[in-house]
């Protein structure tokens, strides 16, 4: 007895659209069983995980604040992954972006007079730093044929340790009682709040703009076309005259820039200073988000919201129901597996073949 995957003649668009929904429902069911086995009523857990976060203004803002960097980074990563380039180092590009932009804020700390240029300069510095950092694995791949998977991943730890050193050393607030953090940024170096007295800042808008732009570029532009061809049929891309080298550099620049921008938006928005750690792993979670959203910007936006909801819900469940935070991680992983599995099932039929395995 063995299982065979038989390609379907036609891929139904309805099935393709419904498969992530079905995957989500299945994940909730399995999660419910796991919760019940931990001795908690699944209904109560469902409320805490998925209903409560969506029913209060503050938690809705939290969701948007969590989803924004994920969506921004994952949108950039979609360009790489569509082109079959494996940038695993968005976390490092995020950190370097935050560090470079934060440095601008610290260097201009306390300056008087015309200060409107500081915030744009920070955003540009963060984006450029992200791009430059992504260029290291990209150039190593293009020039020397080094696997970008390893280099981009390992550079994450370099970036994290660099930030750690800078926050404890050169950029530490001299009047901060030796706490490992920089000065608090000036008002001119902070992203403005969207609503008075709330936490929602303009970084959320940046993510939305990026999603719209990426939809246009990936779907409609010749560059987006080249990216998709390069990933799907590299020889056809060469035949089309699309330079593999240039596409590699561009895709890494886009993903690195997006991650760097997300990094500085996080620092200039929510945190407001440099600390030894500025990311709860956004750059890695964004990889899941990118694939949950099937590498399409709009899908990524939806996936980022789902992951944000489960994260916020998971924190609440930890407090209210004493459920471990790892359960949330497990749930997110389960969701990814199920979405990818459902994706396979929309393209293939499973057939049971009697007889011995080959």
């Amino acid at each position, binding site marked *: 007895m063995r299982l065979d995957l038989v390609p*379907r*003649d036609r891929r139904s668009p309805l099935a393709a659209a419904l498969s992530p929904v079905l995957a989500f429902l299945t994940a909730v069911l399995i999660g419910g069983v796991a919760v019940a086995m931990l001795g908690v009523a699944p209904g109560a857990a469902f409320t805490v995980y998925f209903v409560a976060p969506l029913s209060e203004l503050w938690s809705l803002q939290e969701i948007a604040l969590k989803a924004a960097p994920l969506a921004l980074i994952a949108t950039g990563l979609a360009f790489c992954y569509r082109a079959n380039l494996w940038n695993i180092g968005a976390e490092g590009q995020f950190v370097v972006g935050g560090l470079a932009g934060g440095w601008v804020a610290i260097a201009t700390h306390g300056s008087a007079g015309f200060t409107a240029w500081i915030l744009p300069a920070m955003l540009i510095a963060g984006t450029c730093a992200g791009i430059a950092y992504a260029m290291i694995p990209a150039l190593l791949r293009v020039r020397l044929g080094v696997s970008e998977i390893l280099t981009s991943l390992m550079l994450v730890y370099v970036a994290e340790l660099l930030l750690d050193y800078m926050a404890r050393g050169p950029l530490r607030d001299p009047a901060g009682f030796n706490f490992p953090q920089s000065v608090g940024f000036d008002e001119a170096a902070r992203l403005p709040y969207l609503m008075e007295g709330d936490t929602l800042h303009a970084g959320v808008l940046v993510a939305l703009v990026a999603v719209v732009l990426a939809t*246009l570029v990936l779907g*409609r*532009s*010749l*560059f987006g*076309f080249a990216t*998709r*061809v390069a990933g*799907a*049929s590299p*020889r*056809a*891309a*060469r*035949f*089309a*005259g699309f*330079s593999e080298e240039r596409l590699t550099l561009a895709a890494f620049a886009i993903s690195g820039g997006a991650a760097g921008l997300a990094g500085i938006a996080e620092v200039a928005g929510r945190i407001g200073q440099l600390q030894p750690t500025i990311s709860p792993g956004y750059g890695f979670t964004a990889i899941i988000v990118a694939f949950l959203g099937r590498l399409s910007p709009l899908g990524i936006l939806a996936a980022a919201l789902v992951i944000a909801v489960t994260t916020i819900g998971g924190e609440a469940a930890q407090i209210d129901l004493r459920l471990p935070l790892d359960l949330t991680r497990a749930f997110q992983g389960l969701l990814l597996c199920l979405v990818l599995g459902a994706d396979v099932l929309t393209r293939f039929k499973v057939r049971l073949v*009697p*007889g*011995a395995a*080959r």
Partner: protein
Amino acid sequence: MADGTGSGAAAVDPRPLFGAYGIVKRFGSFTANDRVDLEIRAGEIHALLGENGAGKSTLMKILYGLLEPTEGVVTHRGEAVRLRNPEAARRLGIGMVFQHFSLCENLTVAENIALVMERGLRRGTLAERIAALGATYGLHLEPDRPVWSLSAGERQRIEIVRCLLQEPKLLILDEPTSVLTPGEAELLFTVLERLRAEGRALLYISHRLEEVRRLCARATILRGGRVVGACDPRAESAASLAALMVGEQVREVAPGPTTSGGGERLRLEQLSLPAPGLHATGLRAITLGLRGGEILGIAGIAGNGQAELFAALSGEVPAPQAGAVRIDGTPAGHLGVNARRRLGAAFVPEERNGHAAAPGMSLSENVILSRHATAPLTRFGLVRRAAARALAGRVIEAFDVRKAGADPAAGTLSGGNLQKFVIGREIQAEPGILVVDQPTWGVDAAAAARIRQALLDLAARGSAILVISQDLDELFEVAGSIAVLHAGHLSPAVPRTGTTREAVGLLMGGAGGPPVAADAAASGRAVTRSEIAHAP
């Protein structure tokens, strides 16, 4: 040996060795085989003919246990059998030589054979058996040679020996001569003839009707999944066989022009390129000139530099000197593929799926693929999708591309239709120079005739066309002159009327060329020379 029937020993047994009756195979709503009947007797070479998509592969796979039929029964000496998997088929004595070899390049001949044998067979015994088979059938193999150093013909012998070691009663051969030189094909025919004379049955699938007429005493013809006829191929002409296959009289292609009026449009001057990889072939000082209205055919066995020559012509691999490639007089050796397209050149690679077209993308997107630099398909970096769809529509109409849906993915088209689309896409640009690699490889007769006619028409309008092909019939049909590529070296072009298939075949094997340089010998391509030495 041209006589295919003989008086096989098993001809007295009224029950066929293998029979397939009422075979129906459905894939979803598509019926690949529709109540197909086939009887194979011991001691015959039975031809299975049909266009691409006629259901030959499906039927073969059912007989070899790779697919199970939806309905119908397979019999062995009159008794119904169930072929659940290839092991079951092999136990009944069915062997198969696939069109695409499944060999490990880095293992030796003996190791590749040992891979499929039952365990516990000692290597010494195996080498003896290989040698014994070689002596009996003329299947000479050196057991210790690594496969990567072998020619296609030698590789095929490994596949055949692998089958013969299992003592098959029925041997299925899928397009066995598609990769062989005429000399190698002759050797294969001798082997097949001996196997037949021993009383084995052979099921022979081929597009090459002349071979079928020579080898086979019976033929079953499939069209659209059904048996449309059975005949004695020797009593038919190639044209009448083709007509049975496609259900219509195949258009005769108007002969190609032998003289030209235009000036020189394409020139290669001492084009040399190193081999791009261990198993690839470098190009050695290739020089040729091509005028408007001319079609130059480049013959050669696969792996003698065709892919490398195509890449150098298309600009996918730029030449070291700009002057090595001239398009309408402009040095273009250093230019990329799109710059050459802007100079009026167009290219059709050998591989349809994944090189000439992206199979997962729609036809309109595949128009953008090769035409984005030369047709108004973009504005401000954005793709004009309506314009791409319109252009795809014009190609589809002009070349009668059959497809399902408005703008389907290229990979859903049949081979012939996708090839018509790919060729049509380039011809629609009215290129001054067209380079085509294997224009009708694996394409059915009707589509092949249409494609060849389109090439001739384009040349008549003043374009220069370079056709790289392994199919000599095709070259003699369309090309005005023919040159042979062997081990990266191109022989001087000779007019079609001044040469013969035999002369070209000898050149394809490396005879009559300049001394083969040491590097080519080391690359393993020069072994084709020894092939010819074995030839009768």
